[in-house]
């Protein structure tokens, strides 16, 4: 089955998109041959650099004067697909990919599946798997219409892209907005700062609802500083606005891969665990002996974190003196 990749070079995570797609292609697909890629980019991109990062043999660049909206992306992709009807369109698992895959699937009369964990094009019909029921179950789905538009799960393995051969440039299309964005007036853009530090942190302290409130979070922030760790939080903590949303860990936040993760007052719900499962070593501290996080940790401390952490902090401080 032939497939095409779709990436957004306007986004700061462009290189990560390439790694995500290459990892998915290497480890999570069967029977899929990628024949090309579509890249959204600015009007004067470093073409050599872009083509080096695309895990496909050939690429079409769609250049725009401004970052593309979903409306423009879907319109352009639908036009490309009609000219070159690939059976599978594979998108990265970021906001760009999840929004465009769902809309393109519907617009082109195909099948869309978001956050795919794997894709099997050798079965008939092609199937893809993803996590459902809040991450407790894995579902396998038949993809019964073409094009099959999938975004890959952010928890899939990543693979470096710069070692491969650069993609051949097939064409450059200059695109323009065509009134489809008249419903929008831009006011303000704030660049993200926190998420990246969480994803690259070697040591992470993750706080859950067991933190108890703003005062508990302040104590955990202080402990994280003493440990030299980054502080991440579960969705209930971020939703309660005890910390900024860019500290969120899990399926709707950062996907971390630290050497060491201290999970404090965390229940172990799959949505949060997805964000720390790539940790080399996990320690859980939770007073509830039945909390699932204890089974998902390497070492578990069943106790009140408020009485365990001070002793640990002391050891860390002594070691760094």
């Amino acid at each position, binding site marked *: 089955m032939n497939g095409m990749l779709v990436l957004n070079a306007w*986004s700061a995570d462009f290189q990560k998109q390439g790694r995500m797609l290459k990892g998915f292609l290497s480890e999570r697909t069967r029977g899929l041959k990628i024949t090309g890629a579509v890249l959204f980019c600015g009007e004067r991109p470093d073409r050599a650099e872009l083509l080096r990062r695309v895990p496909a043999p050939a690429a079409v660049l769609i250049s725009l004067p401004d970052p593309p909206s979903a409306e423009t992306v879907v319109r352009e992709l639908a036009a490309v697909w009609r000219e070159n009807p690939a059976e599978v369109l594979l998108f990265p698992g970021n906001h760009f990919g999840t*929004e465009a895959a769902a809309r393109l699937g*519907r617009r082109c009369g195909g099948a*869309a599946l978001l956050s795919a964990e794997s894709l099997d094009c050798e079965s008939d019909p092609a199937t893809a798997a993803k996590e459902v*029921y809040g991450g*407790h179950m894995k579902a396998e*789905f038949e993809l019964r219409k073409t094009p099959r538009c999938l975004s890959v799960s952010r928890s899939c393995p990543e693979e470096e892209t710069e070692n491969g051969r650069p993609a051949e440039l097939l064409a450059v299309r200059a695109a323009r907005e065509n009134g489809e964005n008249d419903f929008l*007036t831009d006011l303000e853009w704030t660049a993200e700062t926190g998420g990246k530090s969480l994803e690259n942190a070697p040591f992470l302290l993750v706080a859950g609802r067991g933190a108890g409130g703003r005062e508990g979070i302040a104590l955990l922030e202080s402990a994280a500083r003493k440990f030299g760790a980054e502080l991440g939080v579960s969705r209930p903590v971020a939703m309660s606005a005890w910390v900024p949303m860019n500290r969120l860990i899990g399926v709707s936040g950062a996907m971390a891969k630290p050497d060491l993760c201290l999970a404090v007052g965390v229940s172990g719900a799959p949505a949060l665990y997805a964000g720390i499962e790539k940790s080399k070593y996990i320690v859980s501290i939770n007073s509830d002996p039945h909390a699932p996080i204890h089974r998902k940790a390497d070492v578990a401390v069943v106790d009140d974190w408020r009485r365990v952490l001070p*002793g640990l902090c002391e050891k860390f401080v002594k070691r760094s003196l």
Partner: protein
Amino acid sequence: MRLLNLFFVVPDLEVLSERDWTCGPDLKVNTAFAPPDWNGFDESALELSLRVSDPPEALSGVQRCALTVGGPSCEPFLKTLAALQFDELIRVEPGDADLRFCPEAAARIVKAVAETKFRPDFILTGTREQISESACVPQVTAELLGWPCLTQVMDLHAAGRNRLRVVCAEDGGVSARIVSAPCVLGVGNAPGAYLRVPTLKDKIKYGKKAVTRMTLSDFPETEKPLADPDVRLRSLTRIRKERAGVILDAPSPEEKAEILWERYLEGRVRRG
């Protein structure tokens, strides 16, 4: 301004024990005993809908319709929304139909209600639903209606007649924009957007508002996607992600900290 909210009532999956995670040939997990709750993202969408009438930008004359697809367990949730002064309440009874993995069916219901019953300026719903995790309903609804769509909405406020100031998470940052009607808004991580609690006075005054009850037969356009879906569930299997889970045993938390450090952490932690 007219706002249509689609929301789902979902079982609290965290109360299920390990042995509850099984399914039979019908590929269904029995969650009937789990207490029902708002789908978290839909709850935020409902709260954001109410904020359009909050000062300082408060817009008067806002009409709200809450639409859900589900059984009688949705009724108490609709009563809460009645007390919060949602103007119209609609429950679509799915009967025996399995809508879990068919986002198109939900989107077609929204489209039909939008075109024939309520005629909204904006449609709000959560970006994700807890059971299917399809994350497709806002986008598919927008495509069916031919409307634009924004997802990952974090906050919104009134910005004049038929316009909203919408804050969205995007790759690499956060955008704030003025959005003109019509538009579908998929609400994502919206900090501090838990649904407000109605006052007792409002519960008494508004809580008994009539709910319009419909069935899937009122939406014939759902027949095809349910009978012949683009994406069909083939199997469900339990996910297990477990590690050694060594329980650290000591008489006091202070001693546990000591053992944790000496046996498990000291060698792993980089010198500060």
